[in-house]
């Protein structure tokens, strides 16, 4: 096979891995920007290590407030649009869907390839933003007009914002194409006997998150094009004479469901991992499916909880507050079912299992703090403070990223045909869990004390000065957390080259992807599997042959 055929492949596994490596590379930049943000918050206006010397040689490495704005805009944009969404839908969706449903490939392989290759283009736009006059976008990842549309409002709104918008519009198109592909594949290409209620929960989750993307993304993409018009063609959709609130509605109409796009697949991963490594069927399969359906539908009725104090009609705020409180219910049902899955299970403390357990603990925390934010009068206080920052990092880092780690430890043998080192994996988990708590827990208290997000220097306000020790300790934990990922990267690259060869089914799992070779060849299955039963036939009461593969035929007695 020529190099071009390998790079521009239409094979879902190759495209999945392309999303994997791209997402991982972008994580480095997202994490680096987070470290610089933390440095500034703990040690305001002191020389920034590494980046300071490069970007601000004249001031001896001391950053400017404009640069700080560009940093957190970049961090949010990269982590949401270029890391967690491409990894959870692009990587997991592409790699797992055909394998888990017993298909040879996606329904639209070329559309799939196009969906990946738009991403480097979007990255190029994002990077270009840093090279234009005024620098990169500085209006936050939410880019509220008129700050983002009036060129004189911020240096980043001069030209940088245009490139930011181009990147977001391109990504919107890319993800929409991917979603069409995933939905069609799951509806049309399931193996014989694989009814919807026999799908592994991770496939259900990927299916529903694709539905959310298909329904929500066109709205954000169109909203982005309108903002481009405001900037380039001098229209006035979002100007003070138009409606600045219109952008907030269009942005959050997808911006909020996007949270479910990145948490649902992680929930699916965790359900599967808890079951396989606990040697027990998922407790309450149907309630699990219905609760995900509930999250998907309700997820479209809560977007304006980001706008309680925005100046929109307070009657709307009340309706959205009630809907937001109620969306806690399906998430709660999922937590209870995970705990019931573990109850009586034969828990194997593998690295994948550890991250899945960590997910449950951190997701509970992030979910529960949402109850305060859903309560409109309390949110008036919490909105745009560090309490919100703590809340969504528990969900997106403690939830989505822990789900990604669990997925990586679980499916690595299938993807690369080699085993990861379990000892390094355990060390990676313990440090990551402890430091995650160290970074994000006390951010709740910062927010409670009234520290707003997106401020470059909290010591300006007398009432926030006593928070300095918290900000310093959070920063040290963040630096350590980033450093600790060396255990993951070393494991990843060492195992890729030298890890022991993986058997076809190292975890003795029942679902279809483990019927294929590790790694699966082009076309996936030597013999098309025929599905006989659900994906979770395990029995924790016995050792040895304690599971029944989905495709195994039991001869008649």
């Amino acid at each position: 096979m020529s190099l071009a055929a390998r790079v521009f492949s239409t094979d879902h596994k190759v495209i999945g891995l392309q999303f994997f490596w791209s997402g991982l590379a972008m994580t480095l930049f997202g994490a680096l920007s987070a470290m610089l943000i933390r440095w500034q918050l703990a040690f305001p206006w002191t020389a920034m290590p590494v980046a300071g010397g490069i970007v601000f040689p004249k001031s001896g490495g001391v950053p400017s407030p404009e640069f700080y704005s560009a940093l957190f805009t970049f961090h949010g944009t990269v982590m949401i649009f270029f890391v967690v969404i491409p990894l959870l839908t692009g990587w997991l969706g592409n790699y797992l869907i055909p394998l888990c449903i017993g298909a040879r490939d996606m329904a639209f392989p070329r559309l799939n390839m196009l969906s990946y290759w738009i991403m480097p283009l979007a990255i190029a736009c994002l990077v270009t933003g840093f090279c234009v006059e005024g620098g990169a976008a500085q209006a936050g990842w939410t880019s509220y007009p008129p700050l983002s549309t009036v060129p004189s409002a911020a240096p980043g709104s001069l030209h940088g914002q245009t490139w930011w918008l181009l990147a977001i519009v391109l990504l919107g198109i890319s993800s929409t194409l991917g979603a069409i592909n995933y939905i069609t594949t799951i509806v049309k290409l399931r193996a014989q006997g694989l009814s919807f209620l026999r799908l592994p929960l991770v496939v259900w989750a990927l299916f529903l998150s694709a539905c959310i993307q298909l329904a929500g993304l066109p709205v954000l993409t169109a909203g982005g094009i309108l903002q481009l018009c405001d900037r380039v063609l001098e229209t006035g959709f979002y100007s003070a004479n138009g409606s600045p609130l219109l952008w907030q509605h269009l942005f959050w109409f997808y911006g909020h469901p996007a949270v479910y796009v990145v948490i649902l697949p992680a929930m699916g991963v965790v359900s599967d991992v808890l079951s396989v490594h606990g040697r027990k069927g998922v407790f309450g399969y149907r309630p699990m499916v219905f609760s995900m359906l509930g999250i998907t539908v309700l997820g479209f009725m809560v977007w304006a909880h980001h706008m309680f104090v925005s100046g929109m009609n307070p009657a709307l705020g009340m309706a959205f507050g009630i809907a937001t409180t109620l969306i806690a219910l399906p998430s709660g049902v999922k937590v209870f079912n995970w705990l019931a899955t573990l109850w009586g299970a034969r828990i194997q403390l593998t690295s994948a299992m550890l991250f899945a357990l960590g997910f449950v603990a951190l997701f509970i925390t992030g979910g529960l703090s949402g109850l305060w934010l859903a309560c409109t009068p309390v949110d008036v206080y919490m909105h745009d403070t560090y309490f919100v920052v703590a809340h969504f990092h528990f969900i997106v880092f403690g939830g989505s990223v822990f789900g990604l780690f669990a997925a990586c430890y679980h499916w690595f043998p299938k993807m690369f045909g080699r085993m990861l080192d379990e000892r390094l994996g355990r060390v990676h988990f313990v440090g990551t869990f402890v430091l995650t708590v160290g970074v994000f827990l006390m951010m709740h208290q910062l927010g409670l004390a009234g520290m707003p997000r997106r401020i470059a220097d909290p010591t300006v306000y007398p009432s926030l000065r006593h928070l300095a020790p918290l900000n310093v300790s959070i920063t040290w934990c963040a630096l350590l957390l980033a450093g600790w990922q060396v255990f993951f990267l070393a494991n990843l690259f060492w195992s890729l080259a030298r890890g022991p060869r993986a058997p076809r089914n190292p975890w003795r799992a029942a679902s279809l992807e483990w019927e294929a070779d590790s790694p699966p060849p082009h076309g996936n299955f030597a013999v098309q599997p025929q599905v006989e039963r659900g994906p979770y036939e395990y029995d924790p009461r016995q050792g040895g042959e304690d599971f029944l593969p989905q495709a195994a035929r039991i001869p008649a007695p």
Partner: protein
Amino acid sequence: MRALVATLFAAFALLVLWSFVVAPQRGWAMPENVATLGVAVDGLFAKIQWVVGVFFLLTVGLLSWIVWRNAQGGGGRRSAVSKHTKLEIVWTIVPGAILVWLALVQIAPWEAMKFSNSIPRGADGRPKPALCEVWASQFDWHVLYPGADGRSGTGDDLHSPYELVVPVNEPVVLSLHSRDVIHSFFVPSFRLKQDILPGRETLVWFECTKAGEYDLLCAELCGFGHYKMAGKVRAIPRAEYAAFLERKTRELHSNGMEDRK
């Protein structure tokens, strides 16, 4: 490993408990509430804290205990049961009822804070007029009090940069405006936050119950100087407030020389 992981989760639960129960005593918590509407906010916060606390300790505690019992070497009893309709109904109905209760109790305080029919009324029964206009712009606050003619936007307006002075123990209505981008009027001690959209008037109201000086922050990203958009709210007794307005009026008409005498 089993003991380590179970301990890790148990320690995590205790640490969260510490952060919400002990840390506030160090001032790492909401500042003292000094406004009438804030009482309901703090009450709701406490109610939710109970619900959150019970569910958090129950679930994370259970997680720790299950790991301790069911991981290799734990000796817990194994069970293959993975379906239980009654349990599912119970853990849907009970949290569901609590959530509906939480959804309902937030309605009245929200109405009092934001609905326009909740604007405090004067002695004549009509909604009180705004005490002053607060103008936000990149990156400062500017307060305009109506002068002798009682109307804003006329030549005799009284200016107070950075500092909003209000009478204590009486309802105050403010008229918020922005000259450029979106800002947000945030006084943590009043539990009050409201975004200010350019091109329209936004009303807020509160009643401060304790004389003193309070931080006024901008809570909506408004540009590179967002972090230093600091202001002050000073709540003073009515008599002092009258004296403050009088001094401002004198300043307006003085040529800057007479005060030196």
